[in-house]
């Protein structure tokens, strides 16, 4: 095996086995910090040894064994007495949890611990990317545009809180499960969105590293909880959004709106996979399971990605799905997105009236002004449209979106 092949093999094993190794070690040693460090050392040893020794037949087993030795070495080095060590152990609950429709997997405990509601949202995102995703601290710091030392401290503090406040290492009880799963999905969706509409003047408009990682982790949760409709919904939503990624930013770095995208450039495999998941959820809905918000959002994206041309879009279906979403989540942002679809069905005038009702709550949100600007433009009210574009440009944080808004404003007569 060439050195390049070995390196590719290690990268793949890292993707597949990192979370499993961390989870197994956390279970054994009751300490996230020891598990994380030992896993990192085991992978470093693989990088050192595999090019000469070859890739072992069971790479995951090799890594777990190596990491176990590293952890024991560290505990000995630090001269921690076994009883003292036990004191600080994570609460690991061995009573079998409610059947989840999947083989109980240690990685689930890890995910629920990293996404615990007692941790701040940005901490949950960072910790999940580190412990479950296996991203390094510098990678996570870059992803969220913070200093490496600050990100390192955030993760260290989180691990210390998990230990001292005794955040348990377990899958929540059936009673708490829906809320906790939706907490995990919220973390993954935020990671995805930060990648899909990256903010900051010096970042790429789309951060593929983050969207890909969010999808990979959502796939993992899907494999662990195949019966959960919202997990399937979120995965479908991400896939159908990711499918349009390359068509969404032009060569000159400008955002391309849905109606101007080259639909041939969409990733057909991702669209097909997303549609399969949406069909699965539609079948469940037909059987009486009411869909959650990710499933409805995925269905909306499925309608868009089913249209060969923008004019083929089934807008009445889109509006009907938004109506369903409003009943579930009556937030102004949902109402704003619904108005965009209403403009296509009932015309810009009706939509504008709906949008302007949101002025109280959304005046600080760039998409509110961008939507209003576009509707005013379509109604021929150029002067007001220009003012709305100005406001949207002032508030937008994504470079590609700013470029798009500036062009639309400058095209006004």
């Amino acid at each position: 095996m060439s050195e390049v092949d070995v390196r590719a093999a290690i990268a793949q094993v890292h993707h597949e086995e990192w979370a499993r190794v961390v989870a197994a070690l956390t279970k054994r040693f009751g300490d996230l910090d020891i598990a994380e460090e030992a896993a990192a050392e085991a992978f470093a040893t693989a990088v050192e040894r595999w090019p000469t020794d070859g890739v072992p037949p069971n790479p995951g087993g090799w890594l777990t064994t190596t990491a176990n030795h590293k952890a024991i070495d560290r505990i000995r080095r630090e001269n921690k007495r076994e009883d003292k060590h036990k004191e600080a152990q994570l609460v690991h609950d061995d009573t079998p949890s409610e059947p989840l429709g999947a083989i109980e997997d240690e990685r689930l405990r890890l995910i629920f611990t990293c996404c615990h509601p007692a941790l701040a949202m940005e901490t949950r995102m960072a910790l999940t990317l580190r412990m479950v995703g296996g991203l390094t601290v510098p990678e996570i710091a870059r992803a969220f545009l913070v200093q490496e030392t600050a990100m390192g401290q955030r993760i260290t503090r989180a691990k210390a809180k998990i230990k001292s406040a005794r955040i348990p290492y377990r899958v929540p009880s059936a009673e708490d499960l829906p809320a906790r799963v939706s907490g995990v999905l919220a973390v993954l969706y935020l990671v995805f969105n930060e990648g899909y509409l990256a903010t900051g003047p010096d970042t790429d408009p789309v951060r593929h590293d983050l969207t890909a990682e969010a999808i990979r982790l959502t796939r993992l949760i899907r494999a662990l909880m195949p019966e959960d409709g919202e997990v399937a919904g979120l995965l479908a939503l991400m896939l159908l959004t990711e499918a349009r990624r390359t068509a969404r930013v032009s060569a000159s770095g400008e955002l391309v709106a849905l109606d101007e995208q080259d639909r041939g450039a969409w990733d057909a495999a991702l669209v097909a996979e997303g549609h399969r998941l949406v069909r699965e959820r539609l079948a469940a809905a037909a059987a009486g399971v009411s869909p959650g918000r990710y499933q409805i959002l995925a269905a909306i994206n499925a309608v868009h990605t089913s249209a060969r041309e923008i004019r083929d879009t089934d807008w009445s279906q889109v509006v009907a799905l938004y109506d369903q979403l409003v009943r579930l989540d009556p937030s102004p942002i949902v109402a704003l997105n619904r108005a965009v679809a209403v403009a296509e069905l009932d015309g810009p005038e009706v939509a504008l009236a709906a949008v302007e009702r949101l002025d109280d709550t959304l005046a600080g949100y760039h998409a509110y002004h961008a939507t209003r600007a576009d509707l005013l433009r379509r109604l021929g009210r150029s002067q007001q449209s220009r003012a709305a574009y100005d406001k949207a440009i002032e508030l937008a944080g994504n470079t590609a979106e700013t470029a798009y808004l500036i062009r639309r404003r400058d095209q006004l007569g």
Partner: protein
Amino acid sequence: MQYLVSVIDDGTGLATPTEDAAIDAFNDRLKAEGYWVFAGGLGAPDPATVVDNRGGEPVFTDGPFVESKEYLVGFWIIEAPDLDVVLKLATEGSKACNRKVEVRPFL
């Protein structure tokens, strides 16, 4: 594992009779289910006296050590196996006393 559940008041004043009754019921539950260690009500911080005997002479200062609109008005000490259990209890405690609570583990 023991946790301090501090009750934070932001100027609401003393507990109403309804709140008192809810707190009593919650306390009974803590005792019946084995979570209870100790609890107490403090009221407003005005009568506090700060004592500092780090130097040669003890210094007494009238009033609380920090002036704040929000102050500790009472607390529970709860014995619980992990944070999930105590967060659930604290959620009920907050409802019972109709105030924010803060959960902190003892060392």
